[in-house]
């Protein structure tokens, strides 16, 4: 039995891909499945070395520069063929923007089911099960995958990567026809959050809401991000007010994050916001209203004006640093 993991190249291997891979590798060991991975970027050797000890037998790659790494149109024919030739029983991808759309397109080509956004992949006596949040995480469904091949996208619920041993995957090089026949073309790849941690991959997220009071007062929050190595997030109220770009929105109609630590500043805790951070490991709330709903959904809370609390917190954290060193 063979399983395949899709690795997403955004420059280098994304943390989301690595987590999806590590989760799948753990289950593959229990199921006795042989694990393969497909890397659509360049420098497959470098990626192979990052996969050391993860239990991957083969890393599939195409040593050609002409194949655009982010174009599903360019890669789907090869991917579909690989699944058929290798008789892959399970395909796992990261539940990122690109991961989800590639997997949906692949599922259509294979006429297979796809369970998106799962948070767990388990196996018992040859049966595969996934857990998938429904209704913005208010409910959790357990699905038994009966048909093969099955497709699953996994969302990071923890960033723990377990390695065992030193074994490196073997690289299998494939050839693909020239990309001149592609109908769609990616004209440009633009990075917007250069220098600041990416929301979906971040272990710590600091978010601001309507309590930020305007577009000009985010300096302290950004500094807190820097001190903690955190990504910046926002509530929809802050986004809709035009204070911050919608790429930062956390929630039902924004990003879903599962960091180790989520700090909500000036956010009331609306159900649609909770939908985006419900699975954070620890939640801290800073709000001046002691009756704010967010205090029902946090581990630690401080009642107070965020413009007082955040600078003090930055001072405290900076003061702790020498001790930690």
């Amino acid at each position, binding site marked *: 039995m063979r399983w395949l993991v899709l690795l997403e190249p955004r420059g280098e291997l*994304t943390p*989301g891909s690595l987590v999806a891979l590590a989760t799948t590798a753990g289950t593959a060991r229990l199921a006795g499945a042989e694990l393969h991975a497909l890397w659509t970027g360049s420098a497959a050797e470098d990626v192979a070395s990052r996969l050391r000890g993860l239990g991957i037998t083969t890393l599939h790659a195409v040593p050609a520069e002409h194949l655009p790494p*982010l174009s599903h149109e360019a890669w789907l024919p090869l991917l579909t063929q690989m699944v058929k030739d290798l008789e892959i029983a399970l395909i796992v991808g990261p539940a*990122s*923007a690109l991961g*989800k*759309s590639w997997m*949906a*397109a692949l*599922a*259509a*080509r294979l*006429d*297979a*089911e*796809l369970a*998106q*956004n799962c948070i767990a992949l388990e196996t018992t006596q040859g049966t595969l099960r996934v857990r998938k*949040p429904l*209704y*913005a995480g208010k*409910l*959790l*469904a*357990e*699905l*038994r995958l009966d*048909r093969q091949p*099955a497709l699953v996208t996994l969302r990071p619920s923890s960033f723990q990567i377990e390695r065992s041993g030193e074994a490196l995957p073997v690289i299998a090089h494939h050839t693909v026809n020239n990309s001149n026949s592609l*109908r*769609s073309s*990616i*004209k*440009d790849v*633009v*990075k917007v959050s250069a220098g600041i941690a*990416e*929301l979906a991959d971040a272990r710590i997220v600091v978010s601001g809401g309507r309590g930020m009071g305007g577009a000009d007062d985010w300096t302290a929050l950004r500094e807190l991000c820097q001190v903690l190595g955190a990504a910046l997030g926002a509530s929809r109220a802050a986004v809709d007010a035009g204070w911050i770009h919608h790429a930062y*929105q956390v929630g039902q109609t924004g990003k*879903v994050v599962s960091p180790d*630590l989520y700090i909500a500043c000036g956010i009331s805790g609306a*159900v*649609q916001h909770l*939908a985006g951070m419900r*699975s954070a490991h620890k939640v*801290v709330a800073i709000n001046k209203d*002691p009756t704010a709903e967010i*205090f029902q*959904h*946090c*581990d*630690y*809370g*401080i009642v*107070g004006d965020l413009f007082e*609390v955040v600078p*003090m*917190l930055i001072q405290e*954290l900076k003061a*702790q640093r020498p001790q930690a060193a």
Partner: protein
Amino acid sequence: MKVVVLVNAVPDTAATPEIAPDGRTVLTEQLEFVLDPYDEYAVEEAVRLKENLGAEVIAVSLGGNMARKALRCAFAMGVESGVLVRLPEGIELTGRGRSLGLLPTLRELAPDLILAGKQTVDSDDAQVPERVAELLDFVHASAVSQLTIVDTARLLVKREIEGGHLLIDLPLPALVTTEKGINVPRYPALPQVLKAKSKPLHEMALPLGVDLTAGWQVESVTRQQTARRQQIFSGEISTGVQQLAELLRQEA
């Protein structure tokens, strides 16, 4: 230009569905249904193409009475006609089933452009549109926050990904799913809402001879609960901050 917009009805985002006594199904009958928030962007974009370029716009939904409501919402925003692919009550389809159910209708309509929401907010799936595009052999781009019609044969779209975006050139026929930021959906004006009731709505049956059954079994549905400590510091701020910083240090 002929534009199809795919619309779907979802329970209001603030509502919490109940779990049936069997522990495997979700009860949604009691809930208020609305047009999926991402579909509002798709409908708005389609209606703008009608207003600015004279495009013919048709809304399509697969489902029961709620799907009919989603179509009426699209009408109230300015779409002129719709097709309901009728799903018998009590049947639930996976993303695969829904895309196969929509396929014959879409083939028949033969649009130049299909617009859809990025994902339905009940399952966050993001797969029906991509599947439909592949089955129709349309090029496609998901989570688009800007769409420009270059000429009668091409589109330029801005597709959002984590940490940035892609600019993609797509020849028609194509499918695009809409992300927040592409537009600000209009609030339907009363005259449009009244007119919506009389706009033509055709019904189609599910295709025969296609296996639409799910390839998985739902074994259980549970309420997701995260126990939080709820340790709140409400006294002197500086003391609270010191204690919080200490707790964060211990847990790091």
